[in-house]
Every structure is written in C-alpha cells, then in structure tokens.
C-alpha cells in the first residue's frame, strides 16, 4: 500500500507546440500538445507539490494572447479536482527558478518552498554579468526574485544544499546541477518509504519533457535525447536521466515527464469539466480515486 497519493494536474496547455522543443533534433516534425502541470503528493499529514506553475495575474493575458497557452486555471480550481485547496499545501519543491515553475508562490500562503541554494545564488550571479549574457536570465522574472525575498523574510524559504533525503518522509530531493539550469533538482517519492525502493515516482521538472527523452524512438535500441534548452550542460542532462532511471530500477514509466500528453495513455486519467487532465499515479490507503 502506498504512503502517498500522487496526482499530476494540468493547469493549462499549449495545443500545438513545435515538437522540436520537447526532443532536441525533431525539427519540422509537426506539433504536439504541451500540457502545463504540477504534481501533488498527499499523505502522512502533508500536502506537497512539485512546482507551482506561473503567475497568471502578471502574465496570463500576455501568455494566452501571444504564446498560445490556453485554459489556464487557478490553483484553487485545479486542486479542487482532487478535493484539496491551495491553503492546505504544506510544502512546494521547486525544481528550478524559471517563471513557469515558481511564479505562482503567492497562491500558496501556508507552504514552505524548497529550492536549491545554488539555483538562487547563480541566478543572482548571472544578473551581474555583462549585458551580452542576458540570455541566461531572460526567462527569470524580477517579480519572482522579489517574491523569494518575501518568502525568506517569512521563514518560508528553505535553501537546499544538494541532495536531501526524507525532506518529508520517503521524499528525497536530488540535485541536478548545471543541467537545465544551474541549480535544478528532481524529486523522488519512495512510496513505501524504503531506502532504494522500486516503488518510487520521480518528478524531473524540465530535465525531460517526454518519455522520448528517456527512451528515444527505437525500442530495440533506446537512447537518451535531451530537450532543446539547457543553461548548463547537455552531458549533465543525459547523466541525470540515467541517474533517474537507475533510481527507478529501470522502469522508465516511473520517471514522470509532466509535459508529456501521453501520461493519459499510461496512467488512469480523466478530463475535468474545465477541460484539464487529472492523472492519478498512486493512492494511499483510504484515499478515493479522483479519476474513476
């Protein structure tokens, strides 16, 4: 029996994203639906999230009008699909500091936010570089930086130093330095609480967008293929992909690409009345299914 119930919740989507942004090299191969999701982990007195999405108040209309992100829904509506409220969220593990992963901290007033110290410090460092290097922080929001200041002053920001086991029981944070960003991390939920458990779920942030990043396209000859964007090193990205698969004892379906629309074909899912996907990965004892 699982310690935690786990859901991947869609909160918006780009219906026709170029495939080449999800798997590097697949240019001019059409488009894919790119869902925007966060993860909810419920159990043992905790309601934790992996990432919190972007701040629609500041950018929603711009994003909707200019970039094709459709059907953004507020956390209150999204979490209601699993019977939860934003105020109940106790922890949020921020995989990296891009605006579309940590922009919505304001909507979770009772959560403590965990982010790698290296992500913050290198981010601040990048702001001091010559203007020619501005690509490095173009996707970071000055408003998010100010929100970090507020969180720190409220005692709601935990700067993580590398790997951290059992941040909540059975949930580990793993550094993925110098990959997608300087201080990215991934989250491993060992759902029976046992060390090295095969009953685990790994949430990779933007280290991967698709199962194709983990497996390639030839089942007879699998390969790792990175996504297009890396502030750090693609070699490090591939090494972390391998590390995540090893933690999952080779069962790649347990390494969850939240942006992969194909999750609905692998795990029990439903489409909500608001047109957003709810995918259910695990149910703890006593928890009712939210998709059946």
């Amino acid at each position, binding site marked *: 029996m699982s310690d935690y119930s786990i859901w991947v919740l869609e909160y918006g989507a780009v219906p026709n994203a170029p495939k080449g942004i999800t798997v590097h090299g697949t240019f001019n191969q059409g488009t894919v639906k790119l869902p925007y999701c966060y993860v909810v982990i419920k159990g043992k007195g905790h309601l934790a999230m992996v990432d919190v999405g972007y701040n629609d108040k500041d950018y929603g209309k711009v994003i909707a009008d200019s970039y*094709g992100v459709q059907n953004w829904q507020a956390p209150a509506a999204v979490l209601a699909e699993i019977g939860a409220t934003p105020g109940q969220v106790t922890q949020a593990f921020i995989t990296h500091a891009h605006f579309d992963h940590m922009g919505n901290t304001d909507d979770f007033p009772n959560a403590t936010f965990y982010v790698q110290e290296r992500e913050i410090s290198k981010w601040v460092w990048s702001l001091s570089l010559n203007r020619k290097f501005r690509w490095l922080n*173009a996707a970071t929001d000055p*408003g998010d930086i100010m929100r970090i200041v507020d969180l720190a002053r409220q005692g709601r920001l935990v700067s993580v130093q590398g790997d951290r086991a059992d941040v909540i029981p059975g949930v580990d944070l793993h550094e993925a330095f110098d990959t997608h960003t300087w201080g990215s991390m991934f989250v491993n939920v060992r759902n029976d609480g046992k060390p090295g458990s095969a009953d685990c779920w790994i949430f990779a942030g933007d280290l991967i967008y698709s199962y194709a990043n983990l497996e390639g396209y030839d089942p007879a000859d699998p390969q790792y293929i990175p996504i297009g964007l890396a502030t750090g090193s693609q070699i490090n990205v591939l090494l972390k992909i391998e590390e995540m698969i090893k933690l999952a004892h080779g069962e790649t379906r347990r390494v969850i690409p939240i*942006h992969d629309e194909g999750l609905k074909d692998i795990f029990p899912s439903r489409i909500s009345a608001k047109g957003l996907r709810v995918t259910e990965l695990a149910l703890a004892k006593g928890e009712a299914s939210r998709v059946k």
Partner: protein
Amino acid sequence: MIGLADRAARRLGDRLESLPVLPRVGVDDISGLPSEPLRQVKIDDATAAYVAKMRDPFELLRQAEAQLAGLLVLATAGGHAIAGHPMLELAAEAVKQAEDGIQTIKAPPPALHHYHHVVQALRAIAQATAQARRVLRPRDDAAIDAVLGPLRAAHQNLLWATTALPGFEVVALSQACCANHTATAKRSSP
C-alpha cells in the same frame, strides 16, 4: 552624499511636469491606470519608431530591477558584501543609461500611456537604487522595505507598460522552457 540615482530621479521629476494629460502615479501608488487592450492600439510609423527607440531603455530598467532584487536576496540571506557590491553599481549604471535614452525619446500620442509608465518605473528604480546605496543592510527589515517598496512599484509600472504597447517584455517568454516558439517567431517577424 548625493548619489547618481538621486540626481537621476530629480532630472526626471522636472521632465514629468511637462507631460500632458496623464495623472501622476507616485511610487507608493500602484493602483495604476486602466490599460487599453493591447490589440486595439494602432501602431503608426511614429509609434513604431518610438517602440524601436524605447526597447533598450526598457530592457535596461528591467535589468536594473532584477539586479536590485538580487541584492535584496543577498540582504535577506544575510550577505555581508552589499555595500559597494558590484551589482549595485551595475544597476546604477543601467538606470543612468536608461534615463539618458528616455530623455531623447519623444512619445507620440498613441505611446503616451506607455511612456508614462516607463518614466514612473524609472523614477521608482532610481529611488530604489538610492535607498540601496544609503540604507541596505543584511537582514534589516526596514532597510529592505525601503528598497522593496519602490522596486515593487517599478515592477508594476513595467508590467503596465508591457500592456500599453507591443514589443516589451518583463520576462522573455520566448526563452521559457515551454514557450510556443512558433507563435514567438511569428510575433517577432517584421
């Protein structure tokens, strides 16, 4: 000692007096002005020229805002090297360059709303920079608030400016992990 940012703020204050029509928005008043929906703004040649000229100053203001916010992170985390931190001087220089650029720009009527918010943002960032020079100390809540207040006002004015005219971003969404780059490319095309 009167700093560069103080002089910058006063010069802009003089120029603001000559702006027609639009009400003043102080650095503590972030209620703002209603924005015309972006798609309804007609871009004539003069406005297009304004947009082209204002992009660099706008980006400099965004850069300065981000750098000051980064300094606040260091102050909150208890950093000891804020006074004289290189990033403070970089922010001040960015503010100066932005001001110099803005002073050369004349806003045509369709751009007046945008211009107003950019000028407000400049004043607020200049004030934040001045405060950071004078008072910013690690873990000093009052000192941090003295910078954070005008910085928030600056951020809000930059956001409003982005809705007043196309071509301005506080966050380069095209660089986002998950942006629809096809749409981005179409938007960026001349």
